[in-house]
């Protein structure tokens, strides 16, 4: 596991943008609602690379991203998934 996300489910409104942009299919919408009645995002698998695409598009700033220390020290290009490079 190279990265990890922590979703603040009480802030999340379940818009699903993070689900759409995750290059690893690592996020799904939960079947359990939060206190506000929204169905929040939750982790789906452990393929996270810590690219932070989900956190960057999250309108609620509800996602925190952690990344493995040794990956952070590698050159940027090797660790950045295709989506973040700005190509369709």
């Amino acid at each position: 596991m190279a990265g990890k996300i922590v979703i603040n489910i009480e802030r999340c409104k379940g818009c699903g943008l993070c689900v759409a942009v995750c290059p690893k299919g690592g996020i799904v919408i939960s079947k359990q609602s939060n206190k506000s009645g929204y169905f929040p995002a939750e982790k789906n698998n452990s393929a996270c690379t810590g690219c932070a695409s989900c956190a960057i598009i999250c309108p609620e700033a509800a996602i925190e991203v952690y990344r493995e220390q040794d990956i952070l020290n590698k050159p940027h290009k090797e660790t950045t998934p295709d989506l973040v490079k700005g190509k369709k």
Partner: protein
Amino acid sequence: MMQKVFSKPQALKDCPTHYCPGCGHGIAHRLIAETIDELGIRGRTIGIAPVGCAVLAYDYFDVDMVEVAHGRAPAVATGMKRTNPDKIIFSYQGDGDLAAIGTGEIIHAAHRGEQITVIFINNAVFGMTGGQMAPTTILNQVTTTTPLGRDASKQGYPLQVSELLTLLPGTIYIERCSLHKPALIRNAKKAIKHAFELQLNNAPGLSLVELLSPCPTYWRMTPVKAIEWMENEMTKVFPLGRLKG
């Protein structure tokens, strides 16, 4: 050993927003807050909230904020900057605020070359009042006041304020960015930071960053469909890129 690489910026208060799910205002707020944090100007920044969906922005930013009359943010910013030249003044305005009722204010503030930063949120619709046509509504877009789609012969063409302002010598930096893909959001962050840096360095003139932003509720789409619509339709009418500076 895991290291935190992304979390909520300090300049954003820890409270849930009132925005609809998938609204771009939250992303724009976060980018501005990140910029304020990175430049270390939280103590000397004054923001101006618009009338529109972002009217409660003063509840979300942890900097000094004022709320002004509809469209008058550049006029108030002028006074604030002239009396407090060491403060960093930014106005946060939607398309109804800046491109409709406040067109006179923004054009004259830009014309006078006021040293302020304007963040212009363009979602092609009036959000707060219920999804009516805005000047920036694109052709054939359905709104509550154009139920058959905007028709150029009846309602005219979408207003491209940013292109309009590039003609004025008082503006120094104008860029149009979008909030529909992570890569473009990174670009938007760079643009906002550049606009703030220009003001920090006392560059003579007004800097404006236009952010195309999704409004899933009044486009009547899911948030994911809304970002696809932005990619396919909206960016054709409002091409992205640096327009001036």
